């Protein structure tokens, strides 16, 4: 059921602003919208006070968003070291105060982490630099003189470089003075003297002989000594790198602080976001937004308690306003709003289809899964998940849908399905009365039954549509476009099923329906267009046909579940028979392997088939059912509230 919305305009003292916003957030009753100025403040320019206020609110929002982003980044950096959260572990409980007050603490952890990361970065780049020097120096380790002592004289310069030993003869031939040192690689270090007078010539001879100049880091000592110095430094760098990594890992112990801090920062961010929508003068502020009509009194009470000095105006939405949509359903139906919202939330002035959709959803879900064993497992798993993990919002809704879907699967598995892929009469003998309808043995009956159920759903959709149209005063659409089809169907059904004189009633209904449809279907147009339009309406029969045939997927998916299950049973059976041959341990091994295979394969089968049933069933509601009567296009009511990820707020 859609709860009507009330529009509120609140004016209060600026001193009370923070208190009021906090109270509103804690109670989660108001969706705040940008102050629209249709109230007494209309025409007022954005005064300096208002501008200042909005600017400060935006600055605050930026700060809070930064905090949240920093904590989130730290959490994802430490993610690998955080203790794993199990599937069934309930999130810890905390109150809002604790969460918000741990933000500074969390930011402190972020700073520590930041510093450690910077330190690690510096250590890494230093180590890289040392490694590069080491690589350059290594070939010259045989040079037994300090490099700083190589200085040009008045008449000659010196060049240190590497060349192949067998090419040294070329230098001898050219009469170049040089000194060769012990090699530390494929090439020998060579110190060549280059007379200033013959510089170009000497250089070209050297290069011709494969001499490459050394590109050494800026050092002056003996290479071998420098190398050992760098190596010891590298070792100590590695040690401190390791220490830093350990320190980062140790920070993961403060993961809970970070998680609390992130939740706290998100709470503050949401409030800062809402504050940006407010309007303010020097002494007062104004707030506009939406409140559920059933919570309007609660809101008034909250305001009286937090800030007695205020003025509030509560009114119904005007025709040109688009209020948000809030659906209120009983505990059983509420999770199924998820399905409707997957398509689109209902129009706020429309009709909430959840209650009329849920029975059909469960019916077809059960038929599509169609395996009692799978249904039992699904229900147990969903119940455990709900009980232990206490999921909120989307996950909680899906878990509840799976729980109820599992119960429905248990029932329909018995009526028209299998048990873990096994036929009921294979298990309990031929005299076992179930399943009443076996899709494996009697395919045509099954397909026709499921399509008939689908046709029933379409008829229900049409009846709902008629009711809604009549409620809106549009009796013409109700009678001519939808009622006429119902008459045609009813007439055809009577003709097919009844043989007594009652069948003339069938002819009458059929004729009347056709007359109404052809005569008034094209009433929006004039002249020839009206007649053509009326006959054109007859073409809609193809739409009904394809919609009904679409329900044959129920048969296919139901059969596929059972067939997949039995195929997996077969596979495990074959594996068991093969392993039984092993002497002595054959019995045990074959049992263990077969059991493991069964467990893995059936879990896979449940997952795939549940996904298929969930989505295909939703599709049947959206396309075949909702198309008949549903007005989508609403936006969900999202009040300013406390929305946390890691902690449940008490």
């Amino acid at each position, binding site marked *: 059921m859609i709860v009507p919305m009330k529009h509120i305009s609140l004016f209060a003292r600026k001193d009370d602003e923070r208190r009021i916003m906090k109270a509103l957030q804690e109670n989660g009753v108001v969706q705040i919208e940008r102050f629209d100025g249709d109230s007494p403040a209309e025409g007022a320019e954005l005064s300096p006070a208002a501008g200042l206020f909005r600017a400060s609110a935006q600055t605050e929002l930026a700060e809070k968003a930064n905090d949240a982003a920093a904590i989130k980044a730290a959490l994802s950096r430490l993610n690998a070291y955080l203790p794993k959260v199990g599937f069934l572990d309930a999130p810890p409980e905390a109150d809002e105060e604790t969460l918000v007050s741990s933000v500074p603490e969390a930011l402190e952890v972020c700073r520590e982490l930041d510093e450690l990361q910077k330190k690690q970065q510096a250590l890494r780049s230093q180590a890289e630099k040392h490694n590069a020097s080491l690589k350059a120096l290594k070939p010259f380790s045989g040079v037994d003189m300090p490099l700083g002592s190589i200085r040009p004289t008045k008449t000659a310069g010196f060049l240190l470089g590497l060349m192949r030993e067998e090419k040294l003869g070329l230098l001898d031939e050219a009469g170049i003075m040089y000194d060769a040192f012990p090699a530390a690689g494929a090439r020998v270090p060579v110190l060549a003297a280059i007379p200033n007078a013959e510089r170009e010539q000497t250089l070209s001879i050297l290069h011709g002989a494969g001499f490459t100049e050394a590109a050494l880091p800026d050092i002056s000592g003996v290479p071998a000594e420098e190398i050992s110095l760098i190596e010891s430094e590298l070792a100590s760098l590695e040690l401190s790198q390791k220490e830093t990594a350990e320190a980062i890992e140790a920070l993961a112990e403060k993961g809970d602080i970070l998680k609390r801090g992130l939740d706290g920062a998100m709470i503050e961010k949401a409030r800062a976001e809402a504050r940006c929508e407010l309007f303010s003068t020097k002494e007062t502020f104004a707030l506009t937004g939406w409140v559920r009509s059933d919570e309007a009194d609660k809101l008034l009470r909250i305001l009286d308690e937090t800030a007695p000095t205020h003025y509030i105006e509560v009114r119904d939405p005007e025709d040109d306003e688009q209020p948000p949509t809030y659906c209120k359903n009983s505990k059983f139906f509420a999770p199924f709003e998820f399905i409707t919202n997957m398509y689109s939330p209902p129009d706020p002035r429309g009709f909430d289809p959840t209650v009329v959709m849920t029975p059909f959803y469960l019916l077809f879900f059960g038929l599509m899964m169609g395996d009692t064993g799978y249904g039992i497992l699904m229900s147990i798993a969903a119940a455990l998940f709900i009980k232990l993990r206490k999921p909120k919002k989307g996950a909680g809704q899906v878990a509840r849908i799976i729980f109820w879907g599992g119960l429905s699967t248990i029932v329909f598995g018995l009526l028209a399905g299998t048990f873990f892929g096994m036929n009921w009469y294979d298990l309990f003998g031929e005299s076992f009365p179930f399943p009443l309808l076996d899709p494996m043995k009697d*395919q045509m009956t099954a397909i026709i039954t499921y399509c008939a159920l689908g046709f029933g759903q379409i008829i229900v959709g049409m009846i709902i549509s008629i009711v809604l149209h009549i409620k809106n005063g549009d009796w013409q659409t109700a009678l001519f476009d939808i009622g006429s089809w119902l008459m045609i169907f009813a007439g055809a059904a009577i003709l097919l099923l009844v043989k007594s004189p009652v069948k003339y009633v069938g002819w009458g209904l059929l004729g009347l329906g056709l007359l109404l449809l052809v005569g008034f279907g094209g009433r929006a147009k004039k002249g020839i267009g009206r007649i053509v339009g009326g006959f054109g309406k007859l073409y809609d029969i193809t739409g009904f046909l394809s919609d009904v045939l679409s329900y044959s*997927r129920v048969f296919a998916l139901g059969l*596929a579940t059972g*067939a997949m299950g039995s*195929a997996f049973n077969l596979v495990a059976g074959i594996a068991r028979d093969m392993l039984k041959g092993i002497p002595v341990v054959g019995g045990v091994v074959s049992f263990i392997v077969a059991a493991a295979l069964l467990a893995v394969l059936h879990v896979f089968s449940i997952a*795939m088939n549940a996904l298929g049933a969930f989505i*295909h069933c939703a599709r049947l509601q959206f396309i075949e059912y909702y198309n008949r009567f549903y007005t989508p296009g609403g936006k969900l009511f999202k009040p300013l509230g406390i929305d946390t990820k890691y902690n449940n707020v008490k």
Partner: protein
Amino acid sequence: MKKFRKFAAVAIIAILALAVCGAVFAEPAPGGDPMMTVGGAPVDNTPKGYIWAALGCCVAMILPGIGSALGVGMAGRAAAGVAAEDPEKSGACLMFELLPATQGLYGFVIAMFIAVFSGILSGSVMNLATDLGRSFFYASLPIGVVGLVSAYFQSRVCCAGIGIVAKQGNGGMGITFAIMVELYAILALIISILMVVGVPVNA
């Protein structure tokens, strides 16, 4: 796109070629007397249904298997791209990745059906009449060909749907768009099932 067309054409032609080979080798000589001889040489006149049944089993598994592997692979790459940016969206992406996987499962179901009904599992397939075996082969064609093609095209819709997830955080109607393609695989599955269980093996 062009690559897939070529690939699908080659795969389908290969299957048809297999069918022709089967037709040539699996035809029993006329007459029907297993001990008949022609010019003194014994003629193999035993029923050849087992070749056809095995071929059907292969087609039902191979073609949709290829389609699903391609489809899940494509969608998986797209999903990994989104999950790399925002790991919180991987759940929604996984739904899209798994959708083209169903065709392979349908093929598997039909392959199992053929294996059970034709007697491949029990071994009685060796006595399967040629005509009956051929019926099993034909029964594998709807899910085989439609499974291959629909898995590929469904995967393209899924990749687009993963785009929706990347931009808006949840798949919304994208899932419904992708499911639309699946209808044809489901219809093919129904026809294949009806054809397999309709083969009068025990008549």
